[in-house]
């Protein structure tokens, strides 16, 4: 198996995922699950093939990492869908997976980019993948909050808040995975699981923000607007953690995460 064949496997997989996403909107539950699963199998066949021909798990290069992103996104999507039946989730994960597939197709030179020894870890991919998924879920929660605060006329319904709450619960769960995978990995590389590196500090800030939201919702379930504002503030902190610190003077000098 080589990268030359990637476009064919990816195209077939995306077609299945897109078909599944469309059928989700039409409430064809069984077909949705089946088609998305077939897409996942096709895509995983490529990963497996690469694994065998490379004689190592394809986790080393950026391009190989994106391969796993594109696989895990619809996988997480199908889990969330089968649990909560949110119609939009599969469209969302399909589009995101497609973005990463396109990056791999149009920026092939990155496939062979070197990876410094510290990044050559089995934790690398899961650490980044779960973070990306949580960012995606929390991004959806933020869009929901903006919609409810700005565009929604009249009372916010219980169902709408239930959706926002669920996105945050699942989002913070993956945020926790990402943060703790990072801690376990850091222990393996640097001998310390938490060093208050600026990226880690902002990861903690983001995590605490969503904890405030969850506890505030439990303490004051009827105060909808402040809760939605917490969501927006939290997402600003999340952006700071994701890429904002690259521009933050306080972080540039000291962070191992600035790239």
């Amino acid at each position, binding site marked *: 198996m080589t990268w030359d064949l990637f476009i064919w496997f990816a195209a077939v997989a995306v077609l299945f995922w897109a078909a599944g996403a469309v059928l989700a909107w039409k*409430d064809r*539950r069984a077909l949705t699950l089946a088609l998305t699963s077939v897409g996942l199998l096709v895509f995983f066949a490529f990963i497996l093939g690469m694994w065998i021909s490379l004689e190592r798990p394809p986790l080393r290069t950026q391009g190989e990492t994106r391969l796993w992103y594109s696989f895990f996104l619809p996988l997480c999507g199908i889990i969330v869908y089968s*649990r*909560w*039946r949110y119609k939009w989730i599969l469209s969302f994960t399909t589009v995101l997976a497609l973005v990463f597939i396109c990056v791999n197709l149009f920026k092939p*030179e990155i496939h062979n*980019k*070197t990876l*410094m*020894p*510290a990044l*050559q*870890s089995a934790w690398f991919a899961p650490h980044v993948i779960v973070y990306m998924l949580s960012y995606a879920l929390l991004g959806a929660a933020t869009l929901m909050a903006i919609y409810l605060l700005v565009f929604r006329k009249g009372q916010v319904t219980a*169902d709408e808040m*239930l*959706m926002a*709450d*669920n996105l945050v*619960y*699942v989002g*913070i*769960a*993956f945020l*926790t*995975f990402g943060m*703790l995978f990072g*801690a*376990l990995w850091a222990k*393996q*590389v*640097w*001998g*310390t*699981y*938490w060093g*208050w590196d*600026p990226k880690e*500090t*902002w990861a*903690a*800030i983001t995590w*605490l*923000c969503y*904890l*405030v939201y969850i*506890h*505030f919702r*439990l*303490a*004051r379930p009827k105060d909808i607007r402040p809760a939605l504002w917490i969501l927006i503030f939290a997402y600003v*902190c999340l952006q*700071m953690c994701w890429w904002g*610190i690259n521009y*933050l*003077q*306080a*972080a540039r*000098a*000291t962070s191992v995460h600035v790239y």
Partner: protein
Amino acid sequence: MWNKPWKLKEGFLIGGGLLVVGLLLQIAVGPVHWERLAFPANVILLGIGLAAIAVMYALRKKVYLFEWMMHTGASVPAICYALGLTIVMGLVAQVDEGGIPWLSHMLTFWPFVLAYAWMMVIVGLVCLNHLLHFNLKEIPFLLNHLGVFLALVCGALGSPDKRELLMTLEEGQTQSKAEDESGKVYDLDLSVELHDFIMEEYPLQPGMRMRMPKRFASEVTVHTKQGKSVDATIDVNKPLKLNGWVFYQYDYDSEAGTESKVSVLQMVKDPWLPFVYAGIYMMLAGAVTLIFFMAPRPKRKEE
């Protein structure tokens, strides 16, 4: 105000009061000296803290404050204060020396430490409450809260007991001394023999002037006092665990590059680590339960 039941406002006032206490402490006694909490002081402090939590719990019917601390209304302001001070920490560059007084040294700033301690007392109280009323439904709650409690409390209290030493090795020689970051030299009950320092580089990449390091590793034999000899290759990301120490590939003679005959290993001993890890694994399990049990359920529509 101060009419029962207390609301968020009272919580923010109590947190503000703690902040003031922290500032007064900072002025009166200076920064927090974590190194003074080295064993056995940290174990004693932990014992006192746990006992205090138990007493507060026992007095909850008599003292309204303790009862109130177990409600989400108390947790929101507590997290907010920890959050606010952590944001300051994220905005102000943290340095060892100099910088902005107080704010550049957040980890030894009393209000920061007290804000987190207050949060942990609250978490400890609710954990005790849930433990004493245990049933299977409490497991998700306990995994998350007890996990955070263990990881944070043991991580912070254990930090003064953590030893981090650097051992400089030369090829063909045996070393039994290592030094800490202040330069103090320690004689160890083991010695490390460096056979070979391995450094590999990637081929020169287009657009780059220097070859990138691909791998560095040390082939060593560790001889222990008990007469055991262990052969190992220590890679970045693949540390060696032996006799309570963990050996990490840390540095090499960067001027010599691939020709380096020198390798620096970092040796870490962290006796509180198993408790922190227990906390981390509980939080990971807790995150799973967050998805499947704790998230509020949507009403299912039948197909």
